[in-house]
Every structure is written in C-alpha cells, then in structure tokens.
C-alpha cells in the first residue's frame, strides 16, 4: 500500500515529468525547423509571381489559408484531447486542451483578419453575414473564447477539464460545417482547391509557397502548444506544492 493505484496507473503512461523531459529535448529542434521554414516560406511568398486575376493579393493566401487550417486543426487536437480526458482521464490530455484554446483563438483571429483583408479588394467588402464560411469561422472564434472563459471560471482544474471536454466535443459539429459550408451553400468564398479528394487543383506556382507556409504554421503551432503545455504543467505543480506546503504547515501547528 505504499503507492496508491492511482499513482502507479499514471506513471505507466507518459507522465508529466517524462513529458517535460521530452519537451526539453524536442522543442529546440522544432523551433529551429519552424524558423527555417518561415524564412523559406516568406522568401517564396514574395518572389513567386502574382496571379493575373488577383494581382498581388494572392500573397495573402500564404498566411490566410494556413491560419484557417490551423484554426480547425487546433480544434481537432482539442477534441482528441477531450476524448483523452473523458475516456482515459489522462492528466496530460487535460493540460493539452486547456493550453490549446488560446492558440486556437489566436489562429482563428488571424484567419478572420487576413480573410477580411483579402475580402476587401476581392469582394469589395470586409465582412458579410450572409456567407456561411465566414460566419461559421466567427462562431468558432466565439467558441474558443467561451472555452477560455469556462476554464477560468472553474477553480478545480480537473473538473474544469472534464466539463470543458464535454463542451469541446459537442462543439465539434462546427468543424465539418466550416469545412463543407462552401459546398453546401453557394457563397462568395473559394471552394476547396487544395484539400480535396481528387488532388489539388491549384497552380503549383502557388502551391509550393503555400505548402511550405502551411508546414511552418503547423510546426509553429506544435512548438507553442508544447511550451504552453509545459507552462500549464508547471503551474499545476506549483499549486500542488503550495497546497502541500500549506497542509504541512497547518499540520505542524496541530501537532
């Protein structure tokens, strides 16, 4: 009975300490590769030709499309973590979706802003409420904010994690709506031309910088996510130790 079942159960799986060690090893490499890819991506983005139809605004694509993909991917990562929280009750999963929410909100904001900046020259308006793609992305943004608020509102972290997991999973219906909104409703927004079943239909001239930037964004996300997870783990470690210290102090008084 020296160690409770709970504790041995957790140390079988990747435990936080081991995760921290992993982060320490992997993150410098990730960060370096991200930086290189960004350099290459930006170079390509500003040296390839403009589109005859869209002019130079096509360069906005290289930030808009990756951040839009990331906004959706981040939510997917959170949904997978949410399953981890609810089904396996793995503490790392709690940390994972809590840390991802601000990142997701930031990328969604980017997609919204760059989209608007692209929309003004292309469609002549910053924003329209009539487009299902635009509004569903806006809803995604609100959901990220709501999840952040929810996490802040519940004091007990593991309870907060479980409750927000439920919400994440329920909100996941929005992701397919975002993805397929352009097919289901006839709208202003571009139809999918890269991520489609029958292969990309976009000119390779644009595809190359786009892919490089997309990979760079993805790696950036994982770098930041790992670091944010590490911060969250440290935060919990600090609170746990503070409680322990308080308990031992009050115990000392009693004795």
């Amino acid at each position, binding site marked *: *009975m020296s160690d*409770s*079942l*709970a*504790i041995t*159960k*957790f140390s079988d799986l990747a*435990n*936080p300490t081991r995760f921290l060690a992993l982060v320490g090893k992997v993150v410098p490499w990730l960060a370096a590769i991200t930086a290189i890819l960004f350099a290459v991506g930006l170079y390509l983005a500003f040296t390839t030709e403009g589109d005859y139809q869209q002019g130079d605004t096509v360069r906005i694509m290289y930030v808009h499309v990756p951040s839009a993909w990331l906004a959706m991917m981040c939510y997917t990562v959170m949904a997978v973590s949410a399953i981890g929280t609810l089904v396996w009750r793995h*503490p790392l999963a709690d940390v994972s979706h809590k840390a991802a929410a601000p990142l997701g909100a930031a990328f969604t904001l980017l997609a919204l802003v760059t989209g608007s900046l692209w929309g003004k020259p292309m469609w002549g308006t910053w924003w329209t409420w009539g487009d299902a793609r635009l509004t569903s992305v806006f809803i995604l943004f609100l959901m990220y904010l709501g999840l952040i608020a929810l996490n802040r509102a519940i004091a*007990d972290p593991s309870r907060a994690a479980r409750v927000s997991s439920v919400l994440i999973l329920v909100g996941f219906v929005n992701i397919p709506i975002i993805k397929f909104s352009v097919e289901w409703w006839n709208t202003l927004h571009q139809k999918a031309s890269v991520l489609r079943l029958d292969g990309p239909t976009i000119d390779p001239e644009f595809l190359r910088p786009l892919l490089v930037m997309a990979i760079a964004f993805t790696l950036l996300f994982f770098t930041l996510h790992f670091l944010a997870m590490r911060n969250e*783990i440290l935060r*919990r*470690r600090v*609170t*746990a*130790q503070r*409680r*322990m210290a308080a*308990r031992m102090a009050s*115990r000392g008084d009693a004795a």
Partner: protein
Amino acid sequence: MRLTAENLSARRGEDLIFRDVSFALEAGESLVLTGRNGSGKSTLLRVIAGLLRPESGKVTWHAPDAEEEMKAAEASHYLGHRNAMKTELSVTENLSFWRDFFSRRNDNRSLSVGEAADAVGLGGIAHLPFGYLSAGQQRRMAFAKLLVSWRPVWILDEPTAALDVSAESVFTTLIKSHLKDGGIVLAATHQPLGLEKARELKMTGFAGVMEEVW
C-alpha cells in the same frame, strides 16, 4: 446480499482524502463513520453512492436474486446534507414525487406517503409547503423519503443533525427495523446513533497530496 468496497481512495481538489478503504457488509449489518470535521466521512459516502468517482478501487453490490453485480448506487438511498426537497411544493407533493420516481416493479415493502409522514411523526402537517417547516421538521421529512420506496442500502450523512431527542429515537427505531428487515445502513455521525452491533470506521482525513502526478 452484500455490499463491498475494495481499496477505495478518493481525492478532493489535489488532496487525497483517504486511501485503501475496504469493507464488506452483509444483510442486517451497519457501518458507522466517525471522525473530525473534514475527515472525509461525506466524501466516502458520496463515493459509495456513486456520486464521486473514486481515484482507485471499487464499490460493488451483490443481490441474492440477480446474477451479475449491480452498481451499489441503484440499490441505495442517499440522505445527504441537503434534503432534496423543493421548498415551493408541499410535503405531500414532494414525497409522492420521490415515491413515483424511485418506484420499482413488485415492491411491496414501501410505505405510502401518509404512512411515511406519520412514521417520522409529522402526519399532521404534510399539506404545508416544505419551505414552511422548521429545520428539524425538514430533516424528518427528508428521512421519510427513505420509507416511500424500499432500497436495501441506506447511506445517511449526519441524519440526526438538527433533530430533537424524540426524533432521534424515532430515527434509531426506523434504522433498526430496516436492519432487521435485512437492510444495510452506512451512516456518518458525530452523535452516537444507538445501534448496538454497528461496526465503526474512524476517518482521519488528508492522506496526502496528489502532486506526484505533476
């Protein structure tokens, strides 16, 4: 008929409240939890009632007629610190709601709403809204809820708080007769309940911090 708990441990926030609690209760047996304020009595009862997930271990219920194990919660009545009654509804409405809600097929050991109110000594005021009762009367009515539908296991969290002496003895009688009928009782109290052959489990509280996880 047998209620077993194996190696239970539970946590509140980051604190482990208790670890490795095991016991087994047969029909007619009772277990009384004692311990200081905050020592984890309510926590253990909530774990057994299935309202709080244990950190490890499990609670099982073997009925003589059923083959497989059931969740203990389904065979139990739980009387917590709160009374689970609506202040806006009358006592009768409250009790008959719970009677219907709890009712099972071929259950002939339950009392009717009126009988239950009489059994706790409040037959005369069952038409009042629950919110109009005094603290002790409310507690009695909450107890009457256990009588309107038969469940083998009673999980009682300080059932006699706010009660006067006569009501305490009424409760003791009711608990004893439940045990005689082959029931099982788990109770947390600060005052002796007056059960003769009750086993006692003394809680100590705070068995460590879960910081190892982090």
